[in-house]
């Protein structure tokens, strides 16, 4: 059985900042990491592999340096890695991205067997849209189940899989047929440590690098800017409020004094709050 895991190399978003004068993004020195949510997808795939025997391929669409991220995934134990990289993909929104990825997955299917499952993380920490997984599912006609917390059962011969899915207010127990696209919830599993042989193998492995042509992408109008229905018209920092925060005097440096002054300030601005707090306290 062949399982494909889609992962993404993302900037460690905690470190991105805006130039205070020109309002531009300062990407300098921002380290990149493997999208944390994808680790859970990878672990789910590896567990299935351990359970029923399968091959796990990881796929990412990104710039050349995304190879580091693929190598990291190999280090966890994935069997092969494919980097889909091409200037033509620049500016892709989620529709264009799901097109490119699904074409690459088709190509991977031709090489190594059609995937029975495509795993993705629940979302990326840079885009946060959670749209690409469902996009791939639609294009490849995979049965889509998102926000999966656990794979409870799988029967490759019968082609069925049972899952637990987080829904509003509770958990759904779902069965569906393979091939399926599954987006995994975080904290649903602990990603394992690759063994020494796996780590060595990953360090030495060759990552497959495909451009658009090699990935079998015929229709370039569906890629990059051209293939993106959504258009970013404006990027900006939120307007500064006319009045920034009123600062409490801290010259005495006494925490107690500052606390008192703060409470006074709070009550002055929200007189109703004092009464509410007293009523709440009286209710104890």
């Amino acid at each position, binding site marked *: 059985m062949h399982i494909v895991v889609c992962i993404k190399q993302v900037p460690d978003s905690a*470190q991105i900042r805006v130039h205070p004068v020109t309002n531009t993004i*300062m990407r300098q*020195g921002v380290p990149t990491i493997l999208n944390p949510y994808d680790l859970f997808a990878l672990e789910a795939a590896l567990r299935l592999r351990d359970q029923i025997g399968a091959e796990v391929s990881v796929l990412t669409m990104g710039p050349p340096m995304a190879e580091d991220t693929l190598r990291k995934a190999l280090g966890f134990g994935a069997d092969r890695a494919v980097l889909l990289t091409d200037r033509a993909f620049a500016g892709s929104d989620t529709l264009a991205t799901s097109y490119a990825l699904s074409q690459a997955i088709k190509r991977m299917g031709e090489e190594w067997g059609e995937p029975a499952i495509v795993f993705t993380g629940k979302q990326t920490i840079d885009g946060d849209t959670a749209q690409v997984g469902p996009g791939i599912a639609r294009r490849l006609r995979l049965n889509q189940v998102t926000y999966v917390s656990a794979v409870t059962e799988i029967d490759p011969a019968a082609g069925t899989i049972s899952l637990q899915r987080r829904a509003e207010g509770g958990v759904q127990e779902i069965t569906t047929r393979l091939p399926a696209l599954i987006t995994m919830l975080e904290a649903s599993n602990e990603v394992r440590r690759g063994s*020494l042989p796996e780590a060595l193998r990953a*360090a030495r492995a060759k990552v497959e690098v495909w451009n658009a042509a090699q990935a079998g992408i015929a229709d370039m109008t569906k890629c990059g800017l051209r293939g993106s229905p959504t258009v970013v018209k404006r990027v900006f920092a939120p307007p500064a409020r006319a009045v920034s925060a009123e600062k409490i005097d801290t010259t005495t440096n006494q925490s107690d004094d500052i606390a008192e002054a703060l409470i006074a300030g709070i009550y002055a601005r929200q007189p109703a709050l004092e009464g509410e707090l007293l009523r709440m306290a009286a209710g104890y």
Partner: protein
Amino acid sequence: MTEERFDAIVVGAGPSGNAAAYTMAKSGLNVLQLERGEYPGSKNVQGAILYADALERLMPDFREDAPLERHVIEQRIWMMDDHSHTGMHYRSELFNEDKPNRYTIIRAQFDRWFSRRVRDAGATLLCETTVTDLLRDSQNRVIGVKTDRHGGALLADVVILAEGVNGLTGQQAGLRAQPEPKDVALAVKEMHFLPQELIESRFGLRGDEGVVIEAMGTITRGMTGTAFLYTNRESISIGIGCLVDEFTRTGQTPYGLLDAFKAHPSIAPLLVGSEVKEYAAHLIPEGGFNAMPKLVGDGWMVVGDAAHLVNAVHREGSNLAMTSGRLAGETVVKLKRLRDPCTEANLGDYRRLLEDSFVLKDMKKYRKVPGLLHGNRQLLDLYPRMLSQAAQTWFRVDGVDKRTKERQIMRDVRQARGWRGLLGDAFKVARAWR
């Protein structure tokens, strides 16, 4: 269970480890490098100085694609008291050369780049892998390592320990003692983001020029320590540290020192409008030559901070690290070529190479300084204050005639330290300096 065999295993992917691995891999040896962090440099996120000469001897063309921040054209040494700094600045157009001599760098990016070059040279790198044990044979020779990854052990003709000042492998294996609190400084650092134009206008820089400030004085509140400020492209690295035993003695906290330093009237204007992005703490070897451990043994060598190779007087560390890594690598390459075993005697070549280089020459030169500073804290506290007071008197134009001013300064000095004290200090410093 695998038992993979390598020519050499390097523990650590910092500057010394990378230098060693690069040297050996380039000569065709089968090198494995093990780094416990997520990626090389992940344990070292802050700003630092790159000494081009040391790196040039490894990679003459490093400037082509290494991530360099600014090249240093000005060095400021500041003696500070609570309201002032008395400083020596040296800025020279000569530092605006084709191949500048020092750069500021950001370690996370730089180490990653360096590591890529090491891998391109043919070394194998495993990250997120911590060495748990050295493997020895029946004659107690080191023959490999065990890691926290299950499934096997790794063997090599030589293990090079580039694991940093607090590296546990060497300590646990009994190859060296845990560094003493008096020999290690705890430094805390921050990275402040500031737009390029502001840095350039504030420090009077054009293009990629950069400034380094090293400071000492009352900012360390009576403890032995120093502070620094480096200009990167679009950020400032600022930090302060003192000997660990000093923090214990006084009960002060490193962050307290850093906050006060940032608020100092000489420093605060340099940071206005900046945004703090990262805090980090770091241990620095300060014990000098007398704190150095044994450098070689049967099947093992120590390089970089793990070997305590830091010139505390000049605040140089990464150049000693890279040089020691390179020399260790060259030693191994030579032995391999001659098909000689990596015994303690043979590996002793490494030590000899170090002694012939600036590394041990400088370490020996300053070996008395740590001891001097320990017994003579006034050097870092009293003198800056005296200097400040003298400068106040001297530069204030207030109708007092100059001879009276000179006498005043002499009186102040005599009161503060006394002529005998002064002479004694001068003598001690001269002795330690030589």
